């Protein structure tokens, strides 16, 4: 009942469907105050003076603080992937003397209503001397601060003999490829409620998400609180996509204000703030050289790329750059490789991770190269890929690179097998023939595909505590988090499979730092792998105890007893075990640890039609073939694929943060930052495979959170080129109608 492999509906959904969700804005404490952030209207400048007098006089205002009032709070530290030298580029919670992007917090107003706070915030006047902004990461580094350049760091990764590869090459191709500035846009904007709990003599932050335990330590340290005096509580979360739930200035400010004022302080981000202040992502430019032999086999890739980090280096430090370089070669042999990634500061909103960080970009780059080689050598685009794929016999495959501090080892894969299944699944020859016939009749329609390798299940650990009550109810406590992806359902299914109970008898507690000492949270498609493994282990321990107890009570043979066949209700057995232990209920803990990630993979296929008059592009078909090792809940895997594909299509055709030359954001509302809607996204077709279960975790699962997005940009670019029969080289995402028009005009020499 509801065990692994069943598409059961989500345990999370009833309160959400009934409007009983508790998102950040739904959390209310009596006597709460409201915080409004005053943000820099200038991209780069020196703060001369901030006048808060009028704001302080405004009705309902309790406090107005500027950088001077929080000067003792250190800047926000890194959570992931620190490399030396980045520390000087961290963001203070309120600007200290300099502003570095439009939207940077320069002051906060705390008042008794959100209206009063917003009214007063308008009265804070920051006198800022404007400096020239840096608006591209490609130009040579300038000065960030005295003695510091705008190049915060360089990530280098390589393997193999690159000079030999180029010496042996029949062809050398050079490409310049870029991906625009996008971000994950969760439906729920950020929010943080700082609450001084006088009864428990502790500070609390409600509205937490993604990585509550890490944030607990980080914020406690910044506020000089012992961690025991600070707890985070996750409610419902309306999407994360990598950006929501990191420590941002506003989280620390709300907590600091609650601590100082000893009153609840609530901050709810509005959408305009969200687009200006929450992490941006992507925005990379790659300069690539590839050595290719006469058959189209890639012998070596040398890639130099520039990451537009924005105004500061935030919690992710070098994560995106690291993942871009470490994952770039993908499923292909590529015997020699070198990547150099420059992390450059500009005067835009700071950047971090967004669903498939580094892989969306790197996959675009690598798969564009494959299309380019196919085109130049007159080869079929499927064939070129087949010639370069790592053969199944070479798996497990040591990539020769590291990513997120782990060695990249493709743990299980049949790359060619998946490609063949996709070709058969969509009947590729017939589809190509139909499209060719449509083109012959005058339509501009084409097909593209792109291969990807994802990573998932980042360690180092996940802990789980499972308790079985005398009623038979199973409670699973984990340090993972839920950003809306179905953690409760999936963990209940895993536990139910082992214990032979209904998944509906299991409840899952996550994101509460007072319930479990350690936790890694939810990111990098890690939860089903890591927490799933820990749940399996803890449930197995319990099963052993219960079976032993049953054997004892029945005076039977342990080996021939089963939990559902023994005739003793689970709760009774659990109570008997608890009595032995002298505990109120039967409990087991388990910790799953790993040094390696597990690597799901797949192919995206897109059919795109181009309108010859308007240059509008319509995605007619989008197919994702994705091997996830083992699918705990196929419906949820498909949901992840659909959502990811929608975001991938957004990044390929619509979404882009554009700035004016003087650093003003021109896409700071949904009127200009174009999210794809149902009208722009076709019904995504998915082919979920379980041909390559992971050998490195007890369930064989691989994370499914990101493979829906990874190759979308690459596949769509490929399809557009095919639609217009390769008269242009699509080198930049998003492909907007205006860009397509000017490319076509240039190509036709007009």
């Amino acid at each position, binding site marked *: 009942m509801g065990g692994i492999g069943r598409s059961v509906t989500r345990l999370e959904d009833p309160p959400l469907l009934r409007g009983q969700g508790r998102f950040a804005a739904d959390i209310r404490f009596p006597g709460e105050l409201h915080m409004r952030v005053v943000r820099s209207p200038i991209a780069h400048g020196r703060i001369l003076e901030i006048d808060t007098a009028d704001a302080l006089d405004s009705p309902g205002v309790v406090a107005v603080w500027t950088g001077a009032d929080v000067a003792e709070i250190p800047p926000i530290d890194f959570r992931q992937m620190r490399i030396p030298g980045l520390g000087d580029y961290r963001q203070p919670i309120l600007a200290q003397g300099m502003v570095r992007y439009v939207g940077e917090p320069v002051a906060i107003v705390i008042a008794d209503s959100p209206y009063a706070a917003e009214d007063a915030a308008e009265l804070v006047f920051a006198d800022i001397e404007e400096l020239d902004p840096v608006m591209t990461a490609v130009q040579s580094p300038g000065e960030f601060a005295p003695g510091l350049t705008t190049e915060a760091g360089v990530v280098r990764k390589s393997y193999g003999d690159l000079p030999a590869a180029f010496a042996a090459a029949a062809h050398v191709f050079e490409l310049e490829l870029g991906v625009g500035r996008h971000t994950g846009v969760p439906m729920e904007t950020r929010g943080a409620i700082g609450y001084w709990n006088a009864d428990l003599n502790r500070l609390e932050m409600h509205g937490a998400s993604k990585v509550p335990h890490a944030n607990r330590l980080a914020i406690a340290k910044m506020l000089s609180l012992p961690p025991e005096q600070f707890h985070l509580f996750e409610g419902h979360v309306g999407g994360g996509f990598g950006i929501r739930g990191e420590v941002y200035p506003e989280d620390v400010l709300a907590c600091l204000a609650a601590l100082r004022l000893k009153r609840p302080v609530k901050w709810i981000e509005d959408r*305009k703030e969200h687009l200006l202040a929450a992490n941006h992502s992507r925005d990379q430019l790659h300069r690539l050289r590839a050595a290719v032999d006469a058959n189209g086999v890639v012998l070596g890739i040398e890639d130099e790329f520039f990451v537009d980090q924005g105004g500061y280096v935030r919690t992710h430090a070098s994560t995106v750059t690291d993942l871009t370089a470490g994952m770039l070669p993908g499923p292909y042999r590529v015997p020699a490789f070198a990547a150099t990634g420059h992390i450059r500061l500009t005067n835009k909103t700071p950047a971090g991770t967004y669903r498939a960080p580094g892989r969306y970009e790197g996959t675009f780059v690598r798969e564009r190269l494959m299309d380019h080689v196919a085109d130049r050598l007159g080869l079929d685009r499927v064939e070129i890929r087949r010639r370069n794929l790592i053969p199944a016999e070479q798996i497990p495959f040591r990539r020769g690179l590291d990513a997120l501090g782990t060695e990249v080892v493709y743990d299980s894969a049949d790359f060619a097998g998946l490609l063949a299944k996709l070709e058969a699944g969509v009947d590729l020859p017939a589809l190509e023939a139909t499209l060719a016939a449509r083109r012959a009749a005058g339509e501009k329609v084409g097909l593209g595909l792109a291969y990807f390798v994802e990573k998932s299940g980042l360690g180092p650990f996940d802990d789980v505590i499972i308790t079985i009550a005398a009623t038979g109810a199973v409670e699973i406590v984990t340090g993972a988090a839920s950003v809306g992806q179905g953690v409760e359902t999936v963990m209940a299914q895993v536990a139910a499979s082992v214990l032979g109970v209904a998944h509906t008898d299991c409840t899952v507690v996550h994101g509460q730092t007072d319930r479990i000492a350690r936790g890694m949270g939810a990111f990098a498609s890690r939860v089903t792998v890591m927490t799933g493994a820990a749940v399996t282990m803890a449930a197995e321990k319990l099963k052993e105890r219960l079976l032993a107890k049953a054997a004892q009570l029945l005076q039977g043979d342990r080996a021939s007893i089963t939990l559902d066949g023994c005739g003793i209700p689970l709760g009774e057995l659990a109570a008997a075990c608890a009595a032995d232990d002298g505990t109120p209920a039967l409990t087991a803990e388990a910790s799953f640890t790993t040094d390696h990630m597990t690597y799901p993979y797949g192919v995206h296929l897109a059919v795109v039609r181009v309108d010859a*008059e*308007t240059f509008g592009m319509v995605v007619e078909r989008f197919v994702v073939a994705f091997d996830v090792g083992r699918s705990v809940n196929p419906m949820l895997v498909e949901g992840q694929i659909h959502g990811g594909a929608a975001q991938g299509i957004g990044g390929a055709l619509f979404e882009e943060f554009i700035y004016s030359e003087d650093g003003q954001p021109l896409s700071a509302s949904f009127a200009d930052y174009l999210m794809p809607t149902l*009208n*722009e996204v076709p019904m995504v077709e998915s082919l979920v495979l379980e041909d390559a279960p992971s050998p490195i975790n007890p369930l064989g699962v691989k994370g499914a959170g990101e493979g829906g997005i990874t190759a979308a940009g690459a596949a769509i670019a490929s399809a557009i080129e095919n639609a217009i029969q390769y008269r242009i080289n699509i080198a930049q995402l998003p492909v907007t109608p*205006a860009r397509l028009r*000017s490319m076509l005009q240039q190509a036709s020499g007009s």
Partner: protein
Amino acid sequence: MKPAAFAYHRPETRAEALALLAEHGEEAKIIAGGQSLVPAMNFRLARPPILIDINAVPGLDGVREEAGQLVIGARTRHATFEKPVTAGPLGTLLARVAANIAHTPIRSRGSWGGSVSHADPASEWCCVTRGLEAELVAESATGRRSIPAADFFQTIFTTALRPDELLAEIRLPLFGPDWHCGFAEYARRAGDFALAMAVVACRVEGGVIREARVGLGGIASTPVTSPEAVAALLGQAPSPALFAAAGAAGAAATDPDGDIHASGEYRQDLVKAMIRRALVQAFA
């Protein structure tokens, strides 16, 4: 995204509404569907000290036919037009146009009068109002006047309405069966404000176009007509070549501005295509 403070009135008669406008005109804004005004207030781009909500005023909704005109009450919601409101070619045209305006929730609140009073040059109703040469009827405590569309739209977000005036109705010509009407627009996403749009209406007699109206939107500070496209059409028999020529003539006479979504040149290409497509649709 919280509006600045404002006072709120909800008159229940037209006289009361007009009296409030007479008293507060300069300071006040009418709120109808709120689909343009409220976002502007939430961004604090608009901060009217007084709102006069006309949603409780009777007699501002609905359409009727009168003396060869379709009379549209200013508060008639966009969604009303999703099904033809009149039997002739006009009803079909308006239904086609309505489908392009925003999304269902916005269409169920936003009003024709609000759209034209707001005077976004990329608004479909503004394009239709101007292109089909509508008349707009304004009322104030001191009287009622009719304003031709050509005089109504002054520049972006600016109309001929005086601060004490309420727009009461919009009057469109009820085209007879010898008229052919069409509309086309191009937007990045379904429901977005279009990058360019065209509305056309042609009367055909003896196989040739005798009368024509062509309106364009999204390309200048107001909706405009295209006398050049009209000139290309008059006296000609409808044909694909004619439609393309009219598009080219219309586009050549425009000089659209560019923004982050489309350059002026690209918009000009779109004008050409939209006039052509509107004509194809009209004669399909």
